[in-house]
């Protein structure tokens, strides 16, 4: 499955790009699987996602839990806890 990933704040800085289109292996089913898969893609991903529990994810611009399946996702946002307001 091919999906558009977008990164924000220090996740974006550490990975070194604002986003990318990625082809994912069939073994990637949930958000948690996706984060684990990304850390295998290189040091920059490892540095951004080394503590997956703090990472927040949105599927099609809605917050998603780490055990949610990503099937059907057009866009997945990956970012740190939010600090607006």
């Amino acid at each position, binding site marked *: 499955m091919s999906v558009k990933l977008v990164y924000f704040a220090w996740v974006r800085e550490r990975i070194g790009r604002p986003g990318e289109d990625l082809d994912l292996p069939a073994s990637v089913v949930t958000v948690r699987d996706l984060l684990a898969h990304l850390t295998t893609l290189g040091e920059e991903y490892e540095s951004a996602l080394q503590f997956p529990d703090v990472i927040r994810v949105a599927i099609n611009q809605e917050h998603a839990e780490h055990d949610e399946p990503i099937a059907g996702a057009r866009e997945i946002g990956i*970012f740190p806890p939010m600090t607006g307001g």
Partner: protein
Amino acid sequence: MSIITPTIRVQSADFDLQAELTALTADHKNIGAVVTFTGLCRDEQGALSALELEHYPGMAEAEMFRIGELAIERFSLIGLTAIHRFGKIMPGENIVLVIAAAPHRQAAFDGANFVMDFLKTSAPFWKKEHAADGQQGDWVAAKDADDTARDKWR
């Protein structure tokens, strides 16, 4: 579903509190209470020269709209406006505006409070500090206290 639709904006430009207040209350004669909250950029006792606000375009508006609809429903608000700025913001400048209008004061206070608690923890914005010495500083860390403030509404 609420019949009242929240007014949501995400913008780099400043906002005008009085203009927003007038726009919100203009067509409603049953408003007895309006609470406005404005969040400003602090200089942290001179340590900061600016904050850089990053946001997730599209999702920021969508999430603020979802929060606004929840507040209108829960507190039976007559009107709600939420505006969040992005980009570089100097100490003393506005960051966020929430206006909640209701027939009575408690709903207006609670509505504005609720929206701010969820804005801070769920709306996709991130603050980066610029130090007074010109150095680019760190990303602001999320606070447990903000999660606690949000969880009191559960």
